[in-house]
């Protein structure tokens, strides 16, 4: 081969190289610059040739290249030095540099050939690996959980420092299945089963077992194991965590206990209440039977006396008999009303949608007041509500009969039934009359059982009507209140549903 041919052959090799190959004089001036150098550093050959190699030096490494050349001048060779170069665009390029001396025919070093290999990709990979390992270690430390690894056979192949810190086991005690000696004996068999099942399918598993802490106390652990898979799908190893959930377990246990206790207490109270209700029922049953029997005799025999012997009696005797008879009747009514009242507390509500106007119409019908010319009844618009129709009708019957009674001395009685304009809250209904009214200083007595604000001789009654009304409304979640001025009528306001 001729010298010329040989040179072009070598040039072709240099140019086809993937590594930057740069010829440089000992004073640092670039003499040759191959295609790969153009590609790696961004300078075309004409721009680079004739300039100093320091062109490629990063600011933090001044004189590095001069140092390399000094060593070359002494006949050294520089092999695979990792360093950084700056490209034309200012970017940093990680390279592995090998520099060899170029000698003349006499063997004197006259220059150097530098081969710069781009190791950017390789470094990134190494960095990623290092970062990943650091993150894994940090994560392990940051976690309050015990992190562990096992090999594909489920055996300990690496140290478990966190497990050892928790259990107090020595490193040599963990080997194989030695770690499981810290697991509660009752749980051991089961956890190996759980793991074996997960291993068959190479899937994540979760379980719980008790682990003996170094102080000897067994703690509940929530365990999760994840298989790390080979590209082919086989399990390479297992990584998992154990979290101490004893506190949570105890809290749950406590909640369960408290709940059970509450349930028990509710049941006790319910049965007490049921017993009380039962007693009350027995009591009122007995009242309705036994208390009325003597009354019947008084009532019945005083009537017989009047029927049979009236002509023989003086007016005085007849009057006394009347008094006995009337009082027996009155007592019968009192007993009846009291029973109605006590029953109201026990009877379940039969709630449904209600048009109060219908209840008012039925109440007026029951009271036979539809056609009394003395009484003018004005029924205004009444918004619908929900409740027990029979009981709420009783509310209107009692309130209207009160109004009728206490307007008895008016030449023209006016009774108004209506509702206040509702502003989004529970409707407020009212019954208003122009009767005798009452003194507001006694308003607190109005709804008490057997409380009366008027003489029985003027306005008869047992004094339980408003107590019944209040009880019915209370059972519906509603309430009642009244306003009046003596001699100028009274207004009873009430709600039939709970107010928000």
């Amino acid at each position, binding site marked *: 081969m001729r010298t010329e041919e040989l040179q072009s052959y070598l040039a072709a090799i240099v140019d086809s190289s993937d590594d930057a190959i740069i010829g440089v004089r000992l004073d640092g001036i670039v003499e040759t610059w191959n295609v790969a150098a153009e590609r790696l550093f961004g300078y075309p050959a004409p721009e680079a040739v004739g300039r100093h190699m320091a062109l490629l030096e990063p600011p933090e490494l001044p004189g590095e290249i001069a140092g390399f050349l000094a060593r070359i001048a002494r006949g050294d060779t520089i092999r695979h030095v990792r360093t950084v170069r700056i490209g034309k665009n200012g970017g940093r390029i990680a390279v592995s540099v090998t520099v060899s001396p170029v000698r003349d025919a006499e063997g004197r070093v006259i220059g150097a050939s530098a081969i710069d290999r781009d190791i950017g990709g390789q470094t990134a990979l190494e960095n990623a690996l290092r970062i990943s390992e650091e993150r894994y270690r940090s994560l392990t430390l940051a976690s309050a959980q015990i992190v562990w690894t096992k090999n594909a056979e489920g055996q300990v192949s690496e140290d478990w420092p966190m497990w050892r810190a928790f259990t107090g086991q020595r490193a040599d005690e963990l080997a194989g299945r030695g770690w499981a000696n810290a697991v509660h004996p009752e749980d051991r068999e089961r956890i190996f089963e759980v793991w074996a099942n997960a291993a068959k399918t190479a899937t994540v598993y979760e379980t719980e077992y008790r682990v003996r802490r170094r102080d000897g106390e067994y703690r509940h652990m929530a365990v999760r194991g994840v298989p790390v898979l080979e590209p082919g799908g086989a399990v390479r190893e297992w990584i998992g965590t154990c979290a101490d959930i004893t506190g949570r377990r105890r809290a749950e246990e406590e909640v369960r206990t408290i709940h059970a206790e509450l349930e028990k207490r509710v049941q006790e109270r319910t049965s007490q209440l049921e017993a009380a209700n039962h007693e009350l029922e027995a009591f009122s*049953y007995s009242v*309705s*039977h036994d208390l*009325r*029997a*003597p*009354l*019947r*005799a008084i*009532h*019945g*025999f005083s*009537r*017989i006396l009047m*029927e049979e012997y009236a002509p023989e009696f003086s007016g005085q005797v007849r009057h006394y008999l009347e008094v006995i008879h009337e009082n027996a009747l009155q007592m*019968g009514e009192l007993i009846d009303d009291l029973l109605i009242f006590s029953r109201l507390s026990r009877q379940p509500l039969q709630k449904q949608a209600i048009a109060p106007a219908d209840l008012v119409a039925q109440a007026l019908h029951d009271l036979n007041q539809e056609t009394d010319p003395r009484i003018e009844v004005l029924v205004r618009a009444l918004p619908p509500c929900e409740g027990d129709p029979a009981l709420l009708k009783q509310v209107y019957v009692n309130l209207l009969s009160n109004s009728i009674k206490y307007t008895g001395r008016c030449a023209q009685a006016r009774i108004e039934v209506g509702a206040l304009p509702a502003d989004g809250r529970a409707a407020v209904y009212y019954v208003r009359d122009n009767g005798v009214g009452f003194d507001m200083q006694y308003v607190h007595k109005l709804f008490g059982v057997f409380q009366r604000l008027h003489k029985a001789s003027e306005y008869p009654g047992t004094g339980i009507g408003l107590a019944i009304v209040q009880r019915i409304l209370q059972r519906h979640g509603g309430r009642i209140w009244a306003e009046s001025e003596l001699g100028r009528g009274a207004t009873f306001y009430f709600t039939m549903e709970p107010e928000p």
Partner: protein
Amino acid sequence: MNDLVEILLVDDNPSDVELTLYVLSRRRLADRIPDGIKVVHDGAEALEFIFCTGAYADRDIHNPPKMLLLDLKLPKVDGLEVLRRAKADPRTRAIPIIVFSSSWEDRDRRQARELGAHSYLVKPVDFEQFAETVRAALATANEAP
């Protein structure tokens, strides 16, 4: 032998018995009850009477009382039980029974009706209303074959 009793009155309260007898006699019902009224004071005796057992074993079961006036709260066997047994037996089923009680509990009223009582009166009843109900029940009894 007073075999042809028309009305059996079952009541343990002597005052109530006296009042009932007074109303029955004064409201001209006694004329229509020639064979009179038998009074018993507890449920067990009432059952013996209508089924002709015990002290009444010599009575003829085919000649039962025309009507029962039955209190509910009775010693030994209560009124609802007497009613149940009388209505369960074909020999006595047709006898009209007026339940005549001091209880106005819905429960008693409903049970009496379900068991087949002719009517349910709450004591103390109005004399006239009571007489009217007895007349109606007797009319039912007379229509029966």
